[in-house]
């Protein structure tokens, strides 16, 4: 199941290990995501989810292991490398500027400038950005009164949607979402899950880090479980029960593994 070269794994990590001093945070972890696939990364607190995500986004590079992007060996030493490859991250705290409007946030740090002299002094191409922002939100079916609305006046789900839309401005190929539904109500969660499906339909590789198994089963195609810094199982959502995933997360599967062979691969013993 761990995406071979042939079936077009977009992002593939093999044998990733990471230590913090004496602590072995990740041991020989494999992970991959394909085009048009939503992969959920789950695990208990301290299982190594965040550490693995930091490896992918270049915030905390691995000590060992190899990363391939679109089949080619890649080096992700800092966030800039990740962005250059086409990996975008939506942080749990969204990292939005409340005082700026939606368009301002979408283009923050990569504002479009006018051509010619005006552009040379940094004059903004407001019309172009407003147009692109409106179009982008429209194709994502994100409903907002106007892209000139200050982000402060949006609901939690709308803010999450804006944060996700922003990650698409740089036209990435892989999007990492850190706990995208953690702070949302039922209706807003549905909204964001819809948006995640639309990212998949656009052919992006989507990685969702989540604690919420209901959301994971609702949106993911594949579930990768980490436990104590190691791969503790990998499941196709179709034909998997929540109990199997919970067992892999908690380690209850270890005890049963020999007997029932539920399928967790690479469990260290």
């Amino acid at each position, binding site marked *: 199941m761990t995406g071979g070269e042939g079936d077009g794994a977009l992002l593939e990590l093999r044998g990733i290990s990471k230590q913090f001093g004496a602590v072995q945070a990740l041991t020989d972890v494999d992970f991959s995501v394909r085009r048009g696939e939503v992969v959920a990364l789950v695990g208990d607190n301290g299982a190594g989810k965040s550490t693995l995500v930091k490896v992918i986004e270049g915030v905390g590079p691995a000590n060992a292991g190899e990363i391939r992007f679109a089949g080619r060996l890649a080096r992700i030493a800092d966030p800039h490398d990740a962005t250059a490859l086409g990996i975008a991250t939506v*942080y749990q*705290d*969204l*990292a*939005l*500027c*409340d*005082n*700026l409007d939606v368009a*301002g946030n979408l283009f*923050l*740090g*990569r*504002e479009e*400038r006018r051509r010619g002299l005006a552009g040379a*002094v*940094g*004059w*903004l191409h*407001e*019309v*172009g950005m*407003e*147009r692109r922002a*409106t179009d982008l939100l*429209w194709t994502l079916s994100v409903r907002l*009164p*106007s892209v000139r609305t*200050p982000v*402060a*006046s*949006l*609901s*939690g789900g709308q803010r999450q949607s804006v944060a996700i839309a922003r990650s698409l401005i740089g036209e990435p190929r892989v999007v990492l979402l850190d706990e995208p539904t953690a702070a949302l109500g039922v209706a807003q969660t549905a909204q964001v899950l819809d948006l995640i499906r639309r990212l998949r339909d656009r052919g992006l590789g989507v990685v969702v880090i989540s604690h919420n198994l209901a959301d994971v089963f609702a949106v993911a195609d594949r579930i990768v479980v980490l436990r104590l810094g190691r791969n503790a199982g990998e499941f196709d959502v179709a034909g998997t029960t929540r109990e199997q995933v919970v067992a892999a997360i908690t380690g209850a599967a270890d005890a049963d593994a020999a007997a029932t062979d539920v399928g967790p691969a690479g469990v260290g013993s």
Partner: protein
Amino acid sequence: MTTSVERDPRLTGDEGVRGHLGAFRRRVTGGELGALPVVIGLVVICLYLQTQNDRFLLPGNVTNLILQVAAVGTISVGVVLVLLLGEIDLSVAAVSGLTSAVMAVLAVHGVHPVVAVLAALVLGAAIGAFQGFMFAVTSVPSFVVTLAGLIAWQGVLLQVLGSTGTVNLPFGTGVSRLVYTFFGDVVGYLLAAAVVAVFVLQALGSRRQRRAAGLEASSPLVIGVRAALLAVGVFFLAYWLNRDRGVPLALVIFVGLVVVFDLVTRHTAYGRHIFAVGGNPEAAWRAGINVTAVRISVFVLAGTMAAAGGVLAAARLTAVNQSTGGGDLLLNAIAAAVIGGTSLFGGRGSAYSALLGVLVIGSISNGLDLLNKSSAVKFMITGAVLLVAATIDALARRGRQARGRA
């Protein structure tokens, strides 16, 4: 309305006058008060002072008022920028005093006035760079860095002025012409016409672009109404000032700086980054903005504007002495920015708040002088107005938060 270009069906349709009024109401009830409270306050204050002393709004006194506020207002523009970052610069008045002293000393030693003024501006920028570096790189809070600056630069001022303690500038020539130059008659009206023309051209250009892109744009009627209001305002001001000596150069400099910084903050990537750093530095940093550079550069601008204000103040008084840059200058410069509607919490405000705020403070001070009130009364009233302005800011912020979590 008949339109040749097909409009995007997704737009809310705020194009006409009614749409504009509706959008305005939504903003105000949503806690985006902008300049509304201060404009109302300014009108009320002026009308009240006029009823108490009918000389208040006469051309001669309006000219005086403008000359009085231009220097503080210029310093306050720099304070606005620092407040947008969510920081504070307590050293601006001391910097204005020191730089104007350096300018005066150079000028009386035969240095060309232009060179002397440039030297003051460069010194202000250098001081700003130093303080910005201390804050942004070594992470000393801006409050402390600039408080240290406030004290230290005053000391340097005394050192520069030497034993006599006062440097007099020649009246009517050199630096003093920055303030005591007036554009009478035709030139005054030409200035007013230029302001209106720039506004109309800019509005029409923006409308054409937005419609070409299929975005909502102001209707010609809205642009016309605004242009007419602006024209009535500036032409009347030019007429009124022409009845005295004309439009003062100090006003042109001050308002010109306000307009330039308003354009920079609202329409350039740099200005957007200032707002972003003031709103959420962490988010700005993650978005790839060089937060340190933005912070240092804003302190550089604040220092430069302080120097410019200091030069204007020295030009008006045609002297620099040991109390230059002291007194209530710092408090007025900060109070003007806040009264004008720039938030102390960072990320909200406008260069125009320096203009509006300084007019409020200047009007109170000037009007109470006309009424022969003491400094005691002036301070108390100015303090009360500042408190009201800060309260409005805090309440509006609460209003935004209340609505923001709908």
